[in-house]
């Protein structure tokens, strides 16, 4: 049985290749001059990195779930 880490990497590589291979046929449907709203700081997924990191740390020490939070992993000695 394939380890889960390798399986995820294989899926990631397939998705990346599929996206890259189809890149030439993609026309940007949101032009650079139409991105003012997206560039507003209130649209950032990580406007306050220090506060978000602390919030994640609180949840990681109180809950079993972990990962896929858009942050790097780190040991915290929470057990």
């Amino acid at each position, binding site marked *: 049985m394939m380890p889960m880490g390798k399986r995820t990497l294989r899926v990631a590589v397939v998705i990346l290749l599929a996206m890259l291979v189809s*890149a030439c046929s993609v026309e940007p449907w949101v032009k650079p001059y139409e991105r003012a709203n997206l560039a507003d700081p209130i649209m950032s*997924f990580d406007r*306050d990195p220090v506060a978000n990191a602390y919030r994640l740390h609180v949840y990681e020490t109180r*809950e079993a779930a972990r990962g896929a939070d858009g942050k790097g992993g780190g040991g915290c000695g929470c057990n």
Partner: protein
Amino acid sequence: MVLMARGEAAVAVTRGLLCLAGFMAVSATLSAAVLPEERADVLFHSYDGGGVTVDGPSILVRKSIGQSVSVKANYYVDSISSASVDVISNASPYTEERTETSLGVDYLHNKTLMNLSYTKSDESDYLAETGSFSISHDMFGDLTTVTLGYSVGNDDIGNNTDETFLRSAKRQNFRLGLTQVLTKNSLLGVNLETITDEGFLSSPYRPYRFSDGTTFGKAPEKYPNTRTSNAVSFRFKYFLPYRAALSGEYRYFHDTWGISANNVEIGYTHPLKANWILDVHYRYYTQKAADFYSDLFSREGELNFLARDKELSTFQDHTIGIGVSYEFKPSSWQFIDTGTLNFSLDHIRFNYDDFRDETAAGGTLAPGEEPFYSFTANVIMAYLSIWY
């Protein structure tokens, strides 16, 4: 037929690679990826709930060197005072301190951003070191950012009541992230992460308890030496016409210990007049217990693995949070472009479905007849951020 299909596939792949080469060449001439902003944050954090208080500072400084390199340093302290239900039931209240330092460097090359970082977490009975690498690339007219990440960590676990106790654990994280511009007002983020652990994964202090009706006792927990978890999350942001933002997040989690979990979060960000920004959010989390968890085993050694950690039990928690931010532009301090003063409060309620409160009624109730445990916690953060 098969050969033809293979031939066509080879041609398609060749075309795709040529297309990719052309795309990369075009990409190289456009530079939309940017280094992280130069900023500094000084934060004071406080957690108070379930008999545990944790507080301390966190300081983050990020500075660019030239046009392509950005460095980051973070210093973080947890001052812990614990009289949790676990501690009261099995030991004496304690205080300790954990410090965490991390250093990172980002390197930007055209549309590709690479990050290398190192984090060290140190407390009296636990030392954790983690190295991380990630690479992200903007593509499709900068509508899509793909990130790949890998971390490896080593933990050394001690025991404050036994100087001879020393165990270790190794952790690896594999991450894939995608941020997609959907429309001129909406963004989507998708993250996948697999984490593998190997080594000593339980607590050297916590026991499980057992009772066959006549005999009651406690014995050290025993966990598997390996754990693999998978998580996928979806995040969404939408810009409202009157300059406000709606956000949503969902995550599904599963691991080889039999734990599955879901959490959803919705948020709303509303700029007020005169430089104030208001944030409100609600989060709901639910998880199913590990296969080897029980509040009360029927006998000693009932299973190969035995745990009574409430974080491995079945429970739900709800968070309601509010934050407020004030932006200022100091005219007297020329080196600061802008700054914000921020305050946030999260109130969390935890409700356990199969973890009983041994301390209820002064510990006089029979094992298995105590009420299920629940508690609330307040998380407070006050911080100053400056951009320069």
